[in-house]
């Protein structure tokens, strides 16, 4: 079999009998038949179950905890508070393994800082009994006013006592640098673009869970749903500070993670400590309600991006001001410098400055989610489209004019990111070869004439993948492989699949490089006691780094096979051919030996080996790749926004991505598709919300809207395979879809609604928000249940009535009398009757509704313009300011309702 040389880019992408093919996954037979082993499927003798009593308030001091009733429930073994766990003095490390910036404990320590914070844990015979008892624990709270939003955090009293403010992390300059400001001011177009990203629940279908099994005082085995058993072992060892304890972490199958399961957090750590204290195996399986309120969440970011452009759309300068709601106990105090590092990395941007901050609030803490820095692509790509519309430039051209092309590399970005082989511009051209833009524009124009609103959105981006060495926690990978005496191949890897299919892709590599059948290769992973150290699934790294390690380990082993076979068959090593488990000598069909026969000799008959050769057929290699490998992509999608309902239908979606060597195109497309579906959820559906007291408003999947098959189109793929500089030429593909999907879809929606004006990028873009754009008024449901008569309406959305200049010329205006009027509020139309009497310029009268009658006096009439105030005291003291115009028998205008904004009024004479 011929094989490309790994790492030789001139050879093109790596291919083989299995590499690059859509082979069936090794994982599927067990998963399809219900024989996967997820954490709740594991039981050990003597295990007990844990449930938590969680805080029902977002911010309070704990006055007292009483567990008398709970303790009386039959089957309850123990009830612990933080006081009981304090002896362990555990350090709740951040993602980067640094101690947390604020005191973080497994259970609440005298104070709660978010709704859902675990306060008390119950250990019982069954999960049901533990939950029964947890609900009987009585906790008395002294409640305080919580800070829920980033804006609350800016002005409110510190979430964590003893801190100066709520800034959890900050980088960049408070004021825009003078030189940058000068560049922005001199720009013919200075665009200020604000993007608000809602909070997201990672929502792996398998919730969090752990089975902690203390095996005596010196050994601990953890079964935990996670992203890397090795990384969890490392984190737990450091957090516990017990170097003499042997910790083993096992996770065979994991039902999705997406950044949530990088390392244990409050509940898992509480279970570990309680198991050590109670000396019994303890299991905790999170339910979905707990997952939606108590598991750390992601996103909730704001970005104000300023861009200076010339009249041809050439980028001149930019500034980004970013904030992220970190909640109370983030897994990393996140001000996400990567957002700024990669903001313009693929674009010819001369100057960029930023301010980046994370904020503590009384909400559940921050954790990673697929493409944690994705805000850069959302902000940049949507801003570019706004700029293109302002300047009258095609959105394709604004990208063509500014992207760094392959022929312009090597190049250095404005934030000093070296670019050698990024291909977003090439991905875009490849995409355009597949999609007829001018035909679409004709279709769009015809549709608009029929009152249908089609839109086309593009986005381009690059993504750092396969990082190793740039951050201490991101390392290389070890591959261990052996040819068994049976002739079968067994590999032990530190990769970890939460759906990634690494048992499959690694087996494809071993089969090709060793010349054996795919069916004869078994790959084992998911156990921290096996293989080498690896951070597992994080940062789109496994295909790139473990793939390289597998190639190099297999090649080492194949070399040994060739050397041994040449010795035994009395041939030149170069003439040895290994194919389908059979070894032969080129040109000598009579000289042949099976791999099993060779392996038996290698292990069992050391006398027959060449002098100095180690017995056995085993090899390992630890691969250290380049510090960073970039993936690139361009995406396009076509939508139709329904004029009457505001619903978005996605008609087409094309992904043109460059992942270098695709080890298995079906796996690559699966990764991209999953990310794109999550992006569609972000743009249209999903939202973790809170009320003003910090109560989560989406605590079930009825309220937290996960994308279903009916929400997701069929994705079309254009593969642009530019080999990377890592061995095998792979580029990471795990996160890209979730990054590029959101701006692609937002841009398509904005393009569809361009005739109505700009669409504010405030995710999710619900039908109500899109209807608001099309109707020119705010139809967004109110966040807070407001008093019925004073429902919030954005003042800007209501046109200021102007007195008709020609009103007198048109004839005398008749105001006096009774009018039937409707005030349009998002709570529904409010009917009322108005009675007006004029005397010269003075106006008096009353408004009546089922709630009662309110009189007004001392008001002014100016031609056909009525201006009067009504002071109401129910449900709160507020002055309603009416400004109305009369035109014949019609009356229109608005009512300003103080902090609640304005509502539109229409009516007619009775």
């Amino acid at each position, binding site marked *: 079999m011929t094989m490309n040389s790994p790492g030789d880019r001139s050879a093109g992408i790596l291919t083989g009998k299995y590499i690059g093919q859509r082979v069936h996954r090794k994982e599927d037979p067990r998963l*399809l038949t219900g024989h996967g082993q997820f954490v709740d499927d594991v039981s050990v003798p003597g295990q007990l179950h844990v449930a938590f009593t969680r805080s029902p308030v977002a911010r309070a001091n704990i006055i007292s905890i009483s567990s008398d009733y709970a303790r009386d429930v039959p089957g309850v073994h123990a009830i612990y508070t933080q006081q009981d766990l304090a002896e362990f003095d555990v350090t709740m490390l951040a993602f980067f393994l640094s101690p947390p910036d604020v005191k973080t404990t497994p259970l609440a320590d005298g104070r709660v800082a978010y709704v859902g914070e675990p306060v008390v844990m119950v250990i019982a015979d069954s999960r049901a009994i533990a939950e029964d008892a947890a609900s009987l624990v009585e906790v008395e709270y002294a409640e305080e006013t919580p800070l829920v939003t980033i804006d609350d955090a800016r002005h409110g009293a510190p979430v964590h006592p003893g801190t100066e403010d709520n800034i959890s992390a900050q980088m960049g300059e408070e004021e825009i640098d003078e030189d940058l400001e000068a560049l922005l001011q001199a720009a013919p177009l200075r665009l200020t673009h604000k993007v608000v990203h809602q909070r997201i629940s990672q929502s792996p*279908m398998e919730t969090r869970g752990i089975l902690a099994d203390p095996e005596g005082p010196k050994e601990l085995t953890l079964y935990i749903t996670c992203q890397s058993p090795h990384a969890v072992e490392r984190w737990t060892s450091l957090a516990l500070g017990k170097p003499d304890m042997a910790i083993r972490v096992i996770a065979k199958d994991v039902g999705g993670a997406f950044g949530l399961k990088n390392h244990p957090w409050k509940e898992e750590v509480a279970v570990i400590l309680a198991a050590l204290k109670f000396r019994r195996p303890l299991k905790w399986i999170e339910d979905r309600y707990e997952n939606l309120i108590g598991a750390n969440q992601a996103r909730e970011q704001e970005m104000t991006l300023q861009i200076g452009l010339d009249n041809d759309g050439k980028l001149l300068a930019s500034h980004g001001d970013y904030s992220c709601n970190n909640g109370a106990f983030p897994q990393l105090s996140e001000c996400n410098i990567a957002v700024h590092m990669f903001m313009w990395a693929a674009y010819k941007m001369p100057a960029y400055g930023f301010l980046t901050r994370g904020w503590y609030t009384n909400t559940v803490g921050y954790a990673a989610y697929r493409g944690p820095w994705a805000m850069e692509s959302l902000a940049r790509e949507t801003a570019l489209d706004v700029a293109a519309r302002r300047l009258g430039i095609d959105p394709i051209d604004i990208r063509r004019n500014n992207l760094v092309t392959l022929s312009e590399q090597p190049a250095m970005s404005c934030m000093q990111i070296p670019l050698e082989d990024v291909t977003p511009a090439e991905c875009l051209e490849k995409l355009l070869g597949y999609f007829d833009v001018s035909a679409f524009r004709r279709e769009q124009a015809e549709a608009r004439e029929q009152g249908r609103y089609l839109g086309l959105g593009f986005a381009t981006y690059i993504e750092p993948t396969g990082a190793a060495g740039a951050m201490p926690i991101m390392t290389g990978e070890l591959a261990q492989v052996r040819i068994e005496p049976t002739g079968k191949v067994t590999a032990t890897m530190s990769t970890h699949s939460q759906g990634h299919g690494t048992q499959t892709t690694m087996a494809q590599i071993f089969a090709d490089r060793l010349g054996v059948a795919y069916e004869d290769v078994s790959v084992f992973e998911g156990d921290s006691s096996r293989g080498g150290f690896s951070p597992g699934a994080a940062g789109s790294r496994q295909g790139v780094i473990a793939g390289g390690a597998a190639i190099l380990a297999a090649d080492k082993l194949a070399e040994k096979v060739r050397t041994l076979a040449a010795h035994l068959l009395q041939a030149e090593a170069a003439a040895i051919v290994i194919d389908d488990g059979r070894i032969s000598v080129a040109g000598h069909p009579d000289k042949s030996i099976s791999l099993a026969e060779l392996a038996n000799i290698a292990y069992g008959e050391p006398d027959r080996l060449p002098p100095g050769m180690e017995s056995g057929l085993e090899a390992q290699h630890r691969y250290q790749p380049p510090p960073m490998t970039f993936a690139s992509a361009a995406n396009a999608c076509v939508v139709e926004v329904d004029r009457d309902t505001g619903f978005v239908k996605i008609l087409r979606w094309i992904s043109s991505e460059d992942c270098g060597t695709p080890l298995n195109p079906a796996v690559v497309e699966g990764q991209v598709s*999953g990310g794109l579906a999550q992006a569609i959820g972000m743009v249209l559906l999903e939202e973790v919300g809170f009320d003003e007291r910090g109560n989560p408003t989406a605590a079930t*999947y009825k309220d937290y809207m996960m994308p279903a098959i*009916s929400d997701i189109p*069929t994705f079309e793929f254009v593969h642009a395979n530019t080999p990377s500089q890592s061995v095998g030429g792979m580029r990471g593909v795990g996160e890209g879809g979730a990054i590029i999907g959101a701006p692609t879809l937002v841009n398509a929606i904005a393009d569809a609604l361009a005739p109505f004006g700009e669409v504010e990028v405030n995710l999710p873009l619900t039908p109500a928000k899109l209807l608001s754009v099309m109707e020119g008024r705010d139809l967004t449901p109110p966040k807070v249940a407001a008093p019925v008569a004073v429902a919030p309406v954005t003042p800007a959305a209501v046109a200021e009535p102007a007195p008709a200049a020609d009103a007198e010329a048109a004839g005398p205006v008749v105001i006096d009398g009774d009018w039937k009027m409707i005030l349009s509020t998002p709570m529904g139309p409010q009917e009322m009757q108005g009675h007006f009497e004029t005397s010269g310029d003075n106006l008096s009268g009353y408004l009546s509704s089922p709630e009662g009658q309110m009189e007004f006096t001392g008001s002014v009439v100016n031609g056909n313009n009525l201006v009067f105030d009504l002071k109401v005291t129910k449900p709160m003291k507020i002055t309603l300011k009416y400004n109305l115009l009369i035109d014949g028998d019609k009356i229109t205008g608005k009512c300003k309702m103080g902090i609640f904004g304005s509502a539109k009024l229409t009516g007619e004479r009775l």
Partner: protein
Amino acid sequence: MSNHKIELTINGRQYSGDVEARTSLADFLRDDSGFTGVHLGCEHGVCGACTVTVDGRAVRSCLMLAVQANGATVVTAEGLAAEDGTLHPVQQVLMEEHALQCGFCTPGVVMTLASLTGEGKQCSKEQLEGAMSGHICRCTGYQGIRRSAARLAYNAMGDEA
């Protein structure tokens, strides 16, 4: 809490149990009977991962009590493949179409499709895809599930045979 004796057939074998009235069928199948392929994704009837068939019809076992299954015939994802390990046609098609990644939602997907396809069943592509809207998959973006639904529909089975 009252306890109840139940007898039922699971994957072709007889099982009996002594269950609390509040025990869900899902918990009984997982914890008492050992069929851990029944996955609990939400426990409030939205995600579909716990779907099994009860007397041939797809049911969310998190929303049904074990006592309600007394006397019933239950099939889980463990009970579909042939004794020699040959995958059920639904399982085979899902594998060929790369319709799963983490595999947590998969047993439910398998059971719904199995209840709607096969001998004597007449579901169109649209009907099967519609049924799939009751299953949440966070990994795949539903691409392979959609292709599988198309292949398993009655109007496509001619090509399959």
